[in-house]
């Protein structure tokens, strides 16, 4: 009986130790960082709902969300196309396209994004428009009045700052996604290309049917993260006076002097959007790793 008691006590102690260990691992694996961010968002939401100064800031800044999202989506789509073409140029055996692609990538990566946005929006775009206008005048003189008049009607005032922002972001980000695509293409073993070419596929056919599908799959998470980065960097276009969330928050803070309200609300807006997007990226990543390979 006494023996039984002591084993029962020992069992109980062992059990308690076990559950303590379980608790410890559970505490260690709990995403505290996510809970903290959630708390920040929840607190801000509470303030927006209950504090008049916060709700005013929110309802003002909210107007910029559609501009931010539109600029991000369009620029991102264009930058992917630029990136794919440039990435293909980077791995091309053609020395001309290889050099042009590398020139563009290194140029963009060597200039701060803020500066390249200024440069593209205020120097490159007006320059290109003037050039087209000049070309239009020349073509009109040569008798090609149709296209000539169309081109010479190009006017810098007609190119809105939002459009310039999209062009600037696309060109800047194209260089970054080019590097992602290049890495993706180079991650596919050489044997895949050799096998395809040995069957009589052309280089382009092999790229399209064999290399790119595998390359894109390999870099899908990186492409997703690029979208998140683009969403954040789209705030830079506020320097062009484009009325995205950042610009509206700056204006609001400037004339209301409610800096904490404006910038807390703004930060939490970006945070909620990027958090949701990064969860989506994680989901994609998980699906890739379980789906095949």
């Amino acid at each position, binding site marked *: 009986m006494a023996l039984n008691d002591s084993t029962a006590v020992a069992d109980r102690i062992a059990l308690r130790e076990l559950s303590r260990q379980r608790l410890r691992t559970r505490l260690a694996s709990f995403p505290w960082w996510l809970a903290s961010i959630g708390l920040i968002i929840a607190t801000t939401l509470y303030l927006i709902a209950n504090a008049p100064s916060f709700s005013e800031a929110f309802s003002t800044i909210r107007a910029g969300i559609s501009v931010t999202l539109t600029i991000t989506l369009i620029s991102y789509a264009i930058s992917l196309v630029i990136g794919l073409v440039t990435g293909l140029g980077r791995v091309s055996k053609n020395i001309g396209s290889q050099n042009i692609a590398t020139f563009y990538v290194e140029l963009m990566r060597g200039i701060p994004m803020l500066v390249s946005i200024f440069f593209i929006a205020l120097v490159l775009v007006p320059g290109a428009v003037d050039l087209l206008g000049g070309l239009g005048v020349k073509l009109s003189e040569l008798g090609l009045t149709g296209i000539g008049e169309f081109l010479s009607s190009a006017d810098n005032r007609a190119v809105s700052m939002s459009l310039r922002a999209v062009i600037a972001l696309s060109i800047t980000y194209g260089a970054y996604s080019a590097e992602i695509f290049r890495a993706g293409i180079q991650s596919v073993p050489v044997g*895949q290309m*050799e096998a*395809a070419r*040995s*069957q*009589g596929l*052309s280089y382009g056919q092999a790229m399209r*049917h*064999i290399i790119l599908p595998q390359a894109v799959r390999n870099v899908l998470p990186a492409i997703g993260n690029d979208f998140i980065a683009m969403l954040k960097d789209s705030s830079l276009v506020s320097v062009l006076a484009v009325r995205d969330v950042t610009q509206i928050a700056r204006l609001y803070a400037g004339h209301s002097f409610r800096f904490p309200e404006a910038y807390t609300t703004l930060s939490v807006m970006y945070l909620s959007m990027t958090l949701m997007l990064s969860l989506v990226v994680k989901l994609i990543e998980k699906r890739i790793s379980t789906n095949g390979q």
Partner: protein
Amino acid sequence: MDNNQPPMIEVKNLHKWFGDLHAVDDVNLSVQQGKVVVIIGPSGSGKSTLLRCMNFLETPTSGEVWFMGERMTTDQKDLNRHRAEIGMVFQSFNLYAHLTVMENITLAQRVVKKTEKKEAEAIALEQLRKVGIADKADKLPSQISGGQQQRAAIARALAMKPKLMLFDEPTSALDPEMIKEVLDVMMLLAKEGITMVIVTHEMGFARAAADEVIFMDFGRIVEKSTPENLFNNPQSERTKLFLSQILQK
């Protein structure tokens, strides 16, 4: 057979340099239709490079390659046309990793030959039956064994109805128990009369399947003969040494 028919593939004075390395040194070689030629030799002797020059996966530095009476050039259009008729099997299989076995076999038929999907799949299935893995058609390459992958790769090459098959050490990356299933398939093809050039270390297979065995060393052809002659009565000292080393194993 008609004696005026040009050889299936003919290599004339072929040289290949990789930087300072003379990988293939003045090789002449001719393979008649229906023949099986096995190339043996120590690693680094240039046998794989020679094979890869035959479908211009490596561009020869100098010399000529003639395929069915036509000189091969780097003209991409001609090259793709020739390559569609030259099947190649690689050491590391190189199945398209993102496609199922069936898609692996139908892709080139559809893209290069513009075959209808249904017909391409029928051809694929026929070839898969021949290599004995018709039940793996819907698997991804990563889901089947090495031996099965190599057989799928052979089926992929055969589905293009090639005039010539090149094998680049097809069993070197396989576990020992899987080598036989691949060699059995190759033996079947040899008996069917498919013209084949094979780089291998499988001497038993060479003896049984080859019409001609070529021994290469330092980028040159040292000796070529029938398998009986070359294995039983090698002429060159280098051949003797190589055979004694490899047969001792």
